[in-house]
């Protein structure tokens, strides 16, 4: 599957396209199929996201799992600080890359 990610313009936070808007949690990301570039262009033009790009992901039991390690780290936060990882994912602090 293909999912769309970027950073929030104001806060810089990592965000994922949900089909209706942007979420902090990769679990909310949806497959954008071949529409990623068009969504990215429209959302960036509307300043709802900064520097969006499409990535490969696989479907996991708790939602999409980014294919590349860099985006897996982006999806959970620094792997060396449990307190800075995203609270919603209970595995975040000990995420196995």
């Amino acid at each position: 599957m293909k999912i769309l990610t970027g950073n929030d313009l104001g806060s810089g936070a990592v965000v994922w396209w949900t089909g209706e808007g942007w979420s902090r949690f990769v679990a909310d990301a949806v497959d954008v199929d071949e529409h990623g570039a068009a969504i990215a262009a429209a959302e960036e033009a509307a300043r709802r996201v900064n520097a969006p790009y499409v990535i490969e992901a696989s479907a996991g039991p708790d939602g999409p799992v980014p294919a590349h390690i860099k985006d897996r780290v982006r999806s959970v936060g620094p792997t060396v600080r449990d307190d800075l990882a995203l609270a919603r994912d209970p595995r975040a602090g000990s995420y196995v890359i």
Partner: protein
Amino acid sequence: MYRYDQYDQAIVDARVDEFRDQVARRLSGEFTEDQFKPLRLKNGLYLQLHAYMLRVAIPYGTLDGRQMRMLAHIARKYDRDYGHFTTRQNIQYNWIKLEEAGDILADLASVEMHAIQTSGNCIRNISSDQFAGAAADEVGDPRPWAELLRQWSTFHPEFSYLPRKFKIAVVGSDTDRAAIQLHDIGLQLVEQGGELGFKVFVGGGMGRTPIIGACIKDFLPARHFLSYQEAILRVYNRYGRRDNIYKARIKILVTELGAEEFARQVEAEWREILPLGIDAPVAEIERIEGFFAPPPFETGLADDVDLSDPDFAVWVKQNVHAHKVPGYAIATISLKPVGGIPGDASSAQIERIADLAERYSFDEIRVTHAQNLVLPHVRKADLYALWQGLRDADLANANLDLASDIIACPGLDYCSLANARSIPVAQALAERLAPIERDPGELKIKISGCINACGHHHAGHIGILGVDRKGEENYQLLLGGSGAEDASLAKIIGPGFTQDGVVEAVDKVLGRYRELRTDGERFLDTYRRVGVDPFKAAVYG
């Protein structure tokens, strides 16, 4: 230390106003990201993996308690309660909001700080010896010269768009604590016939193409300091490769031309420049030197230290260095707790260090390129009280220059350029080696998460380079580097490892070292004596 004059303050304040306006225009949509990116980078604001990152300049690694408190304030108010001290003697904040960037720069400006020239193809923050003005072995204090370079290079119109970034380091001792031979320009204060001058190295660097700098001038009279730097920069600016980012650093130009020919061109350019009279007047140099006058040291102080507390004694042995003034010492605060993140300090710790600097070190603090902090002027009689203050804030790590005092870049945990994580490798190695680290003594382990080498892996006695191998983290092991006066480049010894595998490999290397060493021999000495083969055999069988 140096204090801003009206011109310094005016240009920094003006830059804050300008950037506030630029941020507002980005948030309103007037600027696209492509238009805004070069503007934010000129103010040290990057977009990293998780958020915006702000890199704040700490000129030649020197700051006072007031500035440290502001760094703590920024970490607490605008970030997530910590900062990260870097190998460029700067500090980075990892969770900055674009909307607040202008406020942060204004807060920095209120204590004579900024984030200018911490990015981009310009002359970056000048680095120096963390023991400057205190070292027993220095010919002269390098900081006035670093400050002169800062003033000369700040917003220098001719050198704001160089072929690539440009890093300068200045030291004042034969002992090189700033890795000058691994800089675009490395400057060492020397004395010749009673006259002060500089030994000039050019074309060193790490990154994709590591090179030890070449000495192109054994003695540059100090009175011609600026004109000669300008000549070097002009030759580079004219002939540096702008067609290929990987060949754009001055080290490539020096290598392609040859150091002798490069030096000849610099001399020719210098002859053109000299009559223009751009060198700083003696009065200006003396004005700047006045800011770096020695603090009011007491005389007649006792030189002995009560070492009856064994933990304190270990810390003194490892983290305290000789001072040029009797009765004083230089204390290094290691930011490398075993299992911690190299270079990170919490707001509370930063404030504690400000307190201790004000109380015990004439209000001076230094940042080292090894991601530690220094209190340069401590009365020996105060060392125990200082140590207690550090211990209470988990800052009394007695591991300076030992195996757990590891340099590590932020790596893939934070950095958008990284290919692999550095911090977990540093943590695993520190935990493995800390129990035995006093036996080998000095051992410099340096870890980078990509080929850009922010973790100085080329200069590690043991270096580790994280790479991306088919989407997985992989770590190459390098041996034999040094960033000191005996500079050398570490070499990759063979195929790479997993994260656990590289820790095991380092353990095997040290095991072989213990078998091969002679009395008092450091790992680096043994490696240089016996070569790589015994270590390859230990690692790969």
